[in-house]
């Protein structure tokens, strides 16, 4: 159950910002714009996970955020490698 309410409220705010990034993901004219939006969503999701881990007051949940911070960036790098080859 949620123990610390302020952290949950901050996590809810982060979800609102993720929605704003989702708008850019939808309308972005080029693929690079969308990749930037995905990168921003990655960072915000890691922040949300850490905040909610504190809100639930369970240490196990913070490990997910750690794994995520390291893994989510592989996808960004892969898309960047693809764009760099210039295959429009």
């Amino acid at each position, binding site marked *: 159950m949620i123990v610390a309410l302020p952290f949950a409220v901050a996590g809810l705010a982060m979800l609102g910002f993720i929605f704003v990034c989702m708008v850019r993901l*939808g309308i*972005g004219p080029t693929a690079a714009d969308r990749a930037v939006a995905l990168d921003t969503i990655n960072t915000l*999701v890691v922040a949300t996970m850490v905040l909610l881990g504190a809100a639930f007051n369970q240490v196990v949940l913070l490990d997910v955020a750690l794994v995520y911070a390291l893994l*989510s960036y592989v996808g960004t790098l892969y898309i960047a490698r693809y764009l760099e080859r210039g295959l429009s």
Partner: protein
Amino acid sequence: MTILAVLQVVILILIVVGSVLAVWLKDLLASVIALAGSSLLLALQFYLLQAPDVAIAEAGVGAALTTAIFVLAIRKTQRKEEE
């Protein structure tokens, strides 16, 4: 309505938005990016349902592996979807 329910509803709405974008976009690379965002939020939903192990698996599969495989597939075929 507790704040937990609000969080879950918001995340589910975001997942639906991401999935609709993934289906709707004609550029397949953009579609893959939308799908990656959607699976990211799906992992957040698993996390909220107190299943950290499933969330870690979803992180590995959804964020890294699926994106890599789809990008490889796009590179071998073509990027724009035809009408």
